[in-house]
């Protein structure tokens, strides 16, 4: 293990050619190097041999599904998963001395990278209103302080409880139970920021909020679209599934503004061909769409399919499926033909020939899957885009049959499970009624706030207490200045955390750090060693059991912290056995069985190897929509437009980053080293804007509220991104995303459609 640097590194930006392939030997080397910098070889061995194994530790990284038991590799993880798990397993520790040394203001001047590198939090800390330092506090005092503040609020709706996608099903179920027994539905979560648009669009059109495909479907597809996603960095194990699909004869069409390495070629380090060979080509066709052009692309494809059916009646569309399982086809068919090709080509930046070739691929394929991620969901018109993807799938019956379907790819290990467990500010009455019956209290019915509305409410003083369970809300949220102001308005902010991050340094008048056990660690309670459960992106619910000794003896599990806080806050309100829940997580799962459909006999079933697969109603021929059929929808053409002299900026992760936390300042796939303050721009745009390579610029976003949002001191990097588009890393660029710039219907921040201008800045 290396000690954390006490000073920020002083590196210079260097730019090399972007890589044309992902993974391979360098992925293994980088994963091991980072892991061994963090902790000892035996601990690295323990985590890496347990990660994603049956009865092992679920990778706290992305939510990609594991192969079925008996088909997993000895090393069933990716570079980023290995880094992520050992980032948690680090041997570095933060003690009270650290907080005596650095004031909150000093910590806030440090980078996100530096804060994370300091190691694991080991004891509860408090920052009192009259102090600028965190100081130690006992657990009873800390939880008593928070409970007291909650009890003194004028209304339970003056508190908000945020959940990150790392939180287990058990902790999530208890958190929503506590919030509702306390009296509020204010349960913002990271889903509000990542796939909320998918949930809304899929629930409306298909009657299910989840993806319809499993790994078998990926393996057996004839054609897979990867739209607005970067699997090489954000869900690298998807590449293994894509490799198998290619091996079985599938074609892949990648749709993205940037030609990401992981979309081009994959060298599987588990195979000789990936170590010494050329690996496997991923995309057979790359459509370099303009940011926000996906809606128009699928409108173009749908129009071509309809027109092909006109020429060859009965040969293109699945009429039997459309007649039996869908509604709204006629209206959709009329609307789809009315969208002008000129508009489609403007929005996509593609040629008609390129779209036509993709449509030919579709018509040659019996089974088609569309995968998508934030490149689709984080636009103003994300919900119509996903509805249009559903139209596309419905036309040829590509839903509900093997090898076909809709695949929103989720980026955080239990983000789907947390929502299943009721972490949502507007849960339906059927769920609230089940809670009332099970626990004998009346849950609040008024909808709560999501992430964006929580920020608004904090700014306006309507929310005074913010509790974050895991995550780094301040850096995940848009409009950084507005979000920071909002958090600072709070009377109290409390974070249940494993590591230090910006959400501890941008805080309310009183702030609490409540250090929790990590997923890698043994969790021993009154009835013995516990496990937790999680749900992956493909609706498989399985166990996760920590193996390492905890970072500190005084850490409490997330479940224990919530139970203790609930007891102190609710003081006997409702018939909820918090003490027993803390002692035996099996009792929590028994209650989940009683409240959540599909979880019958949860305890018994989840311990089977591989766990439980929650069926998807679409695959059972059931559509829980307003017509009891899948809905075709009519979506107006829209695009992300930038006025002359401006670009459409998307925020994205570097390869050496997990969510809001960078691990280094390098992004080796994109050839960027030593700095994160870069803006990637097409060379033609640079020249059109009269900017030089490597020039220092400020990014200024354009939004009609009179607020200037400026990200200072970014270097231009000529990059083969789509014309008219730019890209910069989050969280640094989140300052540019206006709080009110959100997706229609889903209220999800539009991080991928920020209109910016690049203003030359003075050097030095």
């Amino acid at each position, binding site marked *: 293990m290396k000690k954390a640097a006490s000073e920020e590194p002083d590196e210079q930006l260097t730019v090399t050619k972007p890589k044309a392939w992902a993974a391979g030997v360098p992925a293994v080397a980088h994963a091991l190097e980072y892991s061994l910098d963090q902790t000892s070889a035996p601990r690295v061995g323990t985590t890496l041999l347990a990660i994603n194994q049956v009865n092992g530790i679920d990778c706290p990284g992305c939510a990609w599904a594991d192969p*079925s038991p008996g088909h997993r590799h000895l090393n069933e993880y990716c570079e980023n998963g290995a880094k992520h798990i050992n980032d948690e397993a680090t041997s570095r520790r933060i003690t009270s001395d650290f907080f005596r040394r650095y004031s909150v203001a000093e910590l806030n001047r440090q980078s996100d990278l530096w804060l994370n590198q300091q190691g694991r939090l080991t004891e509860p800390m408090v920052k009192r209103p009259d102090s600028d330092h965190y100081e130690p506090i006992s657990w009873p005092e800390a939880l008593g302080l928070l409970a007291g503040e909650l009890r003194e609020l004028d209304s339970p709706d003056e508190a908000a409880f945020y959940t990150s996608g790392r939180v287990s099903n058990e902790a999530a179920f208890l958190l929503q139970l506590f919030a509702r027994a306390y009296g509020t539905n204010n349960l913002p*979560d*990271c*889903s*509000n*920021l*990542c*796939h*909320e*648009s*998918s*949930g*809304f669009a*899929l*629930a409306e059109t298909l*009657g*299910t*909020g*989840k993806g319809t495909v*499993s790994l*078998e479907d990926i*393996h*057996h597809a004839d054609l897979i679209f990867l739209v607005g996603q970067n699997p090489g960095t954000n869900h690298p194990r998807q590449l293994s599934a894509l490799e198998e699909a290619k091996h*079985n*004869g599938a074609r892949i069409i990648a749709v993205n503004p940037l030609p990401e390495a992981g979309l081009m070629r994959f060298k599987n380090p588990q195979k000789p061909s990936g170590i010494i060979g050329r690996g496997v080509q991923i995309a057979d066709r790359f459509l370099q769409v303009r940011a926000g052009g996906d809606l128009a692309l699928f409108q173009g494809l749908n129009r071509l399919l309809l027109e092909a059916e006109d020429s060859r009646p009965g040969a293109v569309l*699945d009429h*039997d*499926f459309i007649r*039996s*399982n869908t509604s709204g086809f006629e209206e959709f068919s009329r609307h789809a033909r009315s969208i002008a090709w000129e508009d489609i080509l403007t929005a996509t930046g593609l040629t008609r020939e390129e779209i036509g070739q993709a449509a030919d691929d579709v018509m040659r394929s019996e089974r088609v899957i569309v995968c998508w991620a934030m490149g689709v969901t984080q636009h103003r018109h994300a919900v119509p885009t996903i509805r249009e993807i559903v139209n596309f799938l419905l036309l040829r*019956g590509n839903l*509900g*049959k*093997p*090898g076909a379907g809709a695949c929103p790819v989720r980026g955080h290990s239990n*983000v*789907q499970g947390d*929502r*299943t467990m009721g972490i*949502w500010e507007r*849960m*339906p009455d059927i*769920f609230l009624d089940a809670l009332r019956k099970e626990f004998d209290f009346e849950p609040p019915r008024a909808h709560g706030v999501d992430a964006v509305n929580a920020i608004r409410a904090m700014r306006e003083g309507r929310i005074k207490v913010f509790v974050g369970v895991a995550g780094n809300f301040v850096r995940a949220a848009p409009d950084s200045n507005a979000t920071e102001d909002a958090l600072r308005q709070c009377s109290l902010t409390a974070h249940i955390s494993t590591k230090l991050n910006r959400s501890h340094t941008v805080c309310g008048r009183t702030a609490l750090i409540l250090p929790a056990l990590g997923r890698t660690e043994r969790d021993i309670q009154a009835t013995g060693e516990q496990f937790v459960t999680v749900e992956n992106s493909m609706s498989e619910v399985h166990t996760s059991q920590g193996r390492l000794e905890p970072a500190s003896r005084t850490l409490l599990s997330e479940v224990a912290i919530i139970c203790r806080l609930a007891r102190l806050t609710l003081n006997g309100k409702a018939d909820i056995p918090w003490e027993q829940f803390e002692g035996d997580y099996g009792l929590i799962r028994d209650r989940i069985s009683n409240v*959540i*459909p*599909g979880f019958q006999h949860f305890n018994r079933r989840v311990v089977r190897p591989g766990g439980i*697969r*929650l*069926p*998807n*109603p679409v*695959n*059972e*021929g*059931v559509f*829980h929509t307003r017509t*009891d059929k899948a809905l075709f929808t009519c979506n107006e053409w829209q695009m992300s437009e930038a006025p002359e002299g401006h670009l459409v900026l998307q925020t994205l992760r570097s390869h050496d980053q997990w969510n809001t936390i960078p691990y280094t300042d390098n992004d080796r796939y994109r050839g960027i080293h030593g700095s994160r303050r870069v803006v990637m721009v097409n060379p033609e745009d640079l020249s059109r804007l009269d900017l030089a390579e490597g020039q220092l610029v400020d990014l200024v976003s354009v939004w009609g509220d009179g607020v200037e949002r400026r990200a200072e001191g970014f270097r231009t990097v000529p990059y083969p991104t789509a014309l008219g588009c730019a890209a910069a890393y989050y969280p640094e660029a989140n300052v540019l995303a206006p709080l009110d710039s959100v997706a229609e219907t*889903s209220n*999800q921040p539009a991080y991928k459609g920020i209109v910016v201008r690049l203003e030359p800045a003075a050097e030095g």
Partner: protein
Amino acid sequence: MNTVEETIDVAVPVRTAYNQWTQFESFPRFMTVVKGVHQIRPNLTHWVLGRGPLRHEFDVEIVEQVPDSHVAWRSLDRRFMHRGKVSFRATAPDRTEVVVRMHFGSNGVGLLAHLPTLAHRVVQAELGHFKEFIESVGQEGGAWRGSIRNGHVYPAEPEPARSQVPHWPVG
């Protein structure tokens, strides 16, 4: 393409024969070659045949299924391409004729390449096991009465138990 067709007469009503046959996960109870079946969804099953070096796993899509009439399937494994159909016909109120027809692709590799030549014996023997089983137990061990058309599932009732899962939006 090799084709195998085998027929057997079983002394149970057509509904009983059909219902038992479509409980695919019960096949290892009475078949010799089939070691495991997992029904992932009504139209997707995973099969394990044989043991040791002869072990082979593959996924099968059920393309058509009509209660008391027939089930048609195709393998989704390019190493063991085959498709098949089993038909059920009532020859008397308590007698059913079961016909299995299988078509094997020519691209099998290794031991699988020889399977088509063995197939008629294997299918004949396994049909015999089915007859022995269902006639001796007399009643089916379960039933799924939905249908499948062109790969799509049409449930027998509007809210099958398996569709009762959370369907609120997931962000």
